[in-house]
C-alpha cells in the first residue's frame, strides 16, 4: 500500500522536491535542507498552532540539520575505514549513531538511559517509547 501511495503522489512528489531546490538558490548561504523544507518539518511537529519560527532561525536550523547529516555520514565512513570495509553499510552506521544522537539529542530522551549502559549501546530504534 505504501508503494501505491508513493506512485500516486509521485507527480506531487516531484513538485515538492523541485520547490525545495529552487528556494535554495535564492538564499545566499542557505545550503543543505531548503528553508521551505525545514519550515515544513518543524511546523509538522509543533503542538501549538501559534508557534512561529524566525527567518534567521530557519536558516540556522538548516545549517544544524546539514551538519547533523554530514557528521553522521563522516563518522560512518571513519568506522567503515577502521573496519577496512569496501562500503559504508548500516552495521557501521549503527555503531556511530548512539554517540551522535547523544551529542544532539533532546534531554528527555536520554536522561532515563543514564543508568542503563547496555541499552544506550544499541540502535536508536529501541528508544521509541
Amino acid at each position, binding site marked *: 500500500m505504501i508503494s501505491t501511495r508513493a506512485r500516486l503522489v509521485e507527480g506531487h512528489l516531484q513538485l515538492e522536491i523541485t520547490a525545495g531546490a529552487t528556494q535554495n538558490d535564492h538564499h545566499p548561504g542557505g545550503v543543505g535542507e531548503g528553508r521551505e523544507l525545514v519550515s515544513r518539518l518543524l511546523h509538522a511537529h509543533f503542538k501549538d498552532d501559534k508557534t512561529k519560527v524566525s527567518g534567521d532561525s530557519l536558516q540556522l536550523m538548516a545549517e544544524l540539520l546539514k551538519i547533523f547529516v554530514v557528521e553522521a555520514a563522516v563518522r560512518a565512513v571513519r568506522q567503515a575505514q577502521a573496519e577496512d570495509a569496501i*562500503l559504508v553499510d548500516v552495521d557501521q552506521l549503527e555503531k556511530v549513531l548512539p554517540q551522535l544522537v547523544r551529542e544532539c539529542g533532546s534531554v528527555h530522551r536520554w536522561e532515563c538511559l543514564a543508568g542503563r549502559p547496555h541499552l544506550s549501546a544499541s540502535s536508536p530504534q529501541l528508544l521509541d517509547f
Partner: protein
Amino acid sequence: MEEEAEAEEQQRFSYQQRLKAAVHYTVGCLCEEVALDKEMQFSKQTIAAISELTFRQCENFAKDLEMFARHARRTTINTEDVKLLARRSNSLLKYITDKSEEIAQINVERKARKKKKSEDGNHNSRELAEAGVVESEK
C-alpha cells in the same frame, strides 16, 4: 463521517510521506558529497537510515524549540532557542554560534543593500544593476 476521518488520516499520512521523501533526497545529496570527498560508497540502506534518523530528530528539535520559546514566554522561535539545541557538544555549539553570527551579518548587509536600493531608486540605474549582480552571485 467515518469516510471523512479516514480521508483526512490518509492526507496526513501522504503529506508525511512527501516530507520524508524530500528529506531522503536532500540527505542523499549530502551523503553523495561526503562519498566523493572521502572516496567511500554508502549503501542505499545507510542513506535511508540516516534519512529516517534525521526526520525523527526533527521531531525532537521541533518540540524542544517550541518548549524553549514558550519557556521564554515567546511564540516565535529565535536563534537563541536553536543554539540551546546544540548545547551538548562544545564543537557543535561553537559551530552553530559562529553560523548564527554569519547569518545575522549576511542579513544585516542584505537589508542595508535593499534600503540603499530603494533610496537610490530613481537615480543611478547602473548602480542598481551592480547590486543586483552581487546579490545573485552569492
